[in-house]
């Protein structure tokens, strides 16, 4: 039988004494309950911001890009900054759902659903910017490889901007089907619990008639694995291609080969920060502290710390290479970043992205919820300024000093940016109230290995929280001490006797499922060696159960004989 063993040093991923049904109830609760005042307040604010954004977009399209703060020197500013920022945030979702799946990290299961939702919602925001920047968004289909009305002039496949079109649309659509496939069993759970006919109808539609057949689950797991394998290089390619928008140009400060890995690390860095921002709030509001634990937050903080350090290395490498290259334009670009008129943005970027995540070396700070929340926002501010610094400082000092200028955003620039933040939160808040925000089917599959109550039972010899097999046709007799003595001698005669005074006893605790308490019990019976345990068959298991009284069926379930055989041979 499959063993649900997990090393005791691993901390439980599901705290509290949960059963499968408890998980169902906890995940369905935010969907089935009513929204509270706080939700409505935050939703109204987000909606207002979104509407301001819609107004600014309509004004831009109606009047022209001239309403932005762009000028002929700084032709790219907030639009592309926001685009890169939003795409970057999206990366954490795919990293959690795909890369951590390939690495078999179980802690992804509490957070992957919301992280993927965040990916999709933020890539939608990102996609808005290039489309608005086209000025005539009704012609947006011109970027697709279709013949135009005058003959077959095709899109230019040599251009990184067209690679972006392919990368972002593949990324968005693949993330969406990955997310939706994972959602099917959870929608089915909501459908089967729904009481009101309208809800039942909606969730029936969304769940695609998922029934949970063994064959469907087999395919489901294979599809998840292959999608993870495809999404992993995909997520790396997306920000690589985004960085090529800059790296393939010949602008000083952009023309560097370090950009692809540097952008990908930065993307993961900001994305994990955004996941922390969202989930620290969500676990509280939706009562999901049992599934999104301090450990989850701590692990995300560690990822933030590592990727933040990679980003820091990239900043310093860039400075070094600029000096070492001997190219004066390159040298000036970086000198100007640090000491020119945008020194404050550079300082903000350096302190938010390089210095601030280093505090997570302290265990106390990375397990503090309030501190993690504050730092996640600091990181996202820092990452926005990173893109701003890269884009605007490289442009505002042109090759001709007569064109040197500054950039200042108009209320329309600000409106569109704030609008996308509003749009993002509108989508996320709606999601939090209508979707199963935790991949409950997957969480159920790790309950027995990583649930707090199951770990306690295995490691400290508590009661098995799982329902036990009901006993039929068998008379359970009270075991008298006489029976026990007889059973003990029967058991030892088939396993072989052991003299602890002359022979060396094995450490039975090495057998998974045996703790110090159980080892003592076994020793009192007369079992000391792996050799004895390895001889156990069903008959001996039954005898052992009848002698010990407690720990019913554990020896058989964990297959002690096989384990002991392996240990003996080592």
């Amino acid at each position, binding site marked *: *039988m499959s063993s649900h063993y997990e090393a005791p040093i691993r901390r439980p991923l599901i705290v509290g004494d949960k059963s499968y049904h408890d998980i169902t109830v906890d995940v369905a609760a935010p969907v089935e309950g009513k929204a509270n005042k706080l939700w409505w307040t935050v939703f109204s604010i987000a909606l207002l911001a979104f509407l301001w954004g819609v107004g600014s977009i309509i004004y831009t399209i109606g009047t022209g890009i001239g309403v932005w703060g762009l000028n002929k020197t700084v032709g790219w500013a907030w639009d592309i900054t926001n685009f890169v920022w939003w795409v970057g945030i999206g990366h954490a979702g795919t990293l959690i759902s795909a890369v951590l799946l390939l690495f078999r990290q179980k802690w992804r299961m509490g957070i992957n659903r919301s992280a993927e939702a965040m990916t999709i919602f933020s890539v939608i925001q990102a996609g808005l910017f290039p489309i608005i920047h086209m000025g005539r968004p009704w012609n947006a289909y011109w970027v697709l490889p279709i013949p135009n009305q005058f003959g077959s002039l095709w899109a230019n496949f040599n251009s990184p901007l067209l690679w972006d079109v*392919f990368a972002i649309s593949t990324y968005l659509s693949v993330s969406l089907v990955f997310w939706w496939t994972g959602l099917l*069993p959870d929608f089915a*759970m909501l459908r089967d619990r729904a009481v009101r006919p309208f809800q039942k109808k909606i969730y029936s539609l969304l769940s*695609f008639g998922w*029934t*949970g057949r*063994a064959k469907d689950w087999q395919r489901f797991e294979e599809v998840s694995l292959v999608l993870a394998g*495809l999404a992993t290089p995909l997520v790396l390619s997306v920000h690589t291609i985004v960085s090529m928008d800059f790296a393939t140009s010949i602008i000083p400060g952009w023309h560097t080969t370090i950009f692809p890995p540097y952008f990908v690390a930065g993307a993961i860095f900001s994305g994990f920060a955004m996941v922390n921002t969202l989930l620290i709030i969500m676990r509280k509001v939706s009562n999901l502290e049992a599934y999104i634990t301090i450990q989850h937050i701590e692990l995300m903080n560690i990822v933030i710390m590592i990727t933040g350090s990679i980003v820091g290395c990239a900043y310093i490498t860039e400075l070094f290479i600029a000096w070492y290259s001997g190219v004066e334009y390159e040298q000036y670009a970086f000198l100007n970043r640090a000491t020119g008129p945008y020194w404050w943005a550079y300082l903000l970027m350096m302190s938010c992205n390089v210095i601030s995540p280093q505090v997570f070396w302290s265990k106390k700070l990375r397990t503090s919820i309030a501190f993690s929340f504050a730092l996640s926002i600091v990181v996202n501010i820092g990452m926005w300024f990173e893109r701003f610094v890269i884009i605007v400082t490289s442009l505002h000092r042109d090759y001709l000093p007569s064109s040197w200028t500054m950039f200042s955003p108009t209320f329309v620039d600000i409106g569109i940016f704030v609008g996308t933040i509003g749009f993002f939160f509108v989508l996320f808040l709606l999601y939090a109230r209508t979707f199963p925000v935790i991949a409950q089917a997957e969480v159920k599959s790790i309950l027995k290995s990583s649930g707090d109550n199951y770990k306690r039972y295995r490691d400290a010899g508590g009661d098995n929280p*799982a329902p036990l097999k009901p006993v039929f046709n068998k008379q359970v007799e009270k075991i008298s001490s006489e029976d026990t003595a007889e059973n003990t001698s029967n058991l030892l005669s088939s396993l072989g006797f052991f003299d602890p005074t002359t022979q060396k006893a094995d450490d039975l605790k090495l057998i998974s499922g045996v703790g110090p308490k159980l080892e003592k019990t076994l020793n009192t019976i007369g079992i000391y060696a792996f050799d004895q345990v390895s001889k156990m068959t069903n008959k001996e298991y039954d005898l052992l159960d009848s002698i010990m009284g407690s720990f019913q069926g554990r020896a058989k379930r964990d297959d002690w004989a096989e384990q002991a055989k392996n240990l003996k041979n080592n």
Partner: protein
Amino acid sequence: MSSKVIQAMYNDDDILMSAVKETRAAHHHIEEVFTPFPVHGLDKAMGLEPTKIAITAFMYGLCGLSFAIWMTNYMMIQDWPQNIGGKPSFAWIYNMPAFVPIMFEMTVFFAAHLMVITFYMRSRLWPFKKAENPDPRTTDDMFVMEVSVDGNEKELTSFLKETGAVEIKVTEKH
């Protein structure tokens, strides 16, 4: 042969697993098992063939790659070659490095979407499809094993009871 099936309901995945093994050992035919979450090793215990969906994904990926090669060659080299930044446009292979991102994205796009569509079609999942799980609790915390009845119905019922079923229902095959 009767068209009756017995639905035995279990409340734990480990009990279900041993029940599946016992039922197979006793040579009863398991029609279907419904579980609320993936139970690892269940497909092997039931004797299901491994799925070949990963192989289809590989082939879909090759289709995507071929399509991207054809598309870039036709549009950039054959139909309307242009001098773009001096990049060579007279032979596909010389211009190829610029097309690597497109080739990669199309491979992933085709592999991922066509594989998921194949999965939905094979497992009969689509909008407006009616769910066919025998009990709504099978998406919550219950596990149902459907065993077809051939011969003694009573004997099979008591056999399934002994495997640890908490509820047993005899129904006509749907």
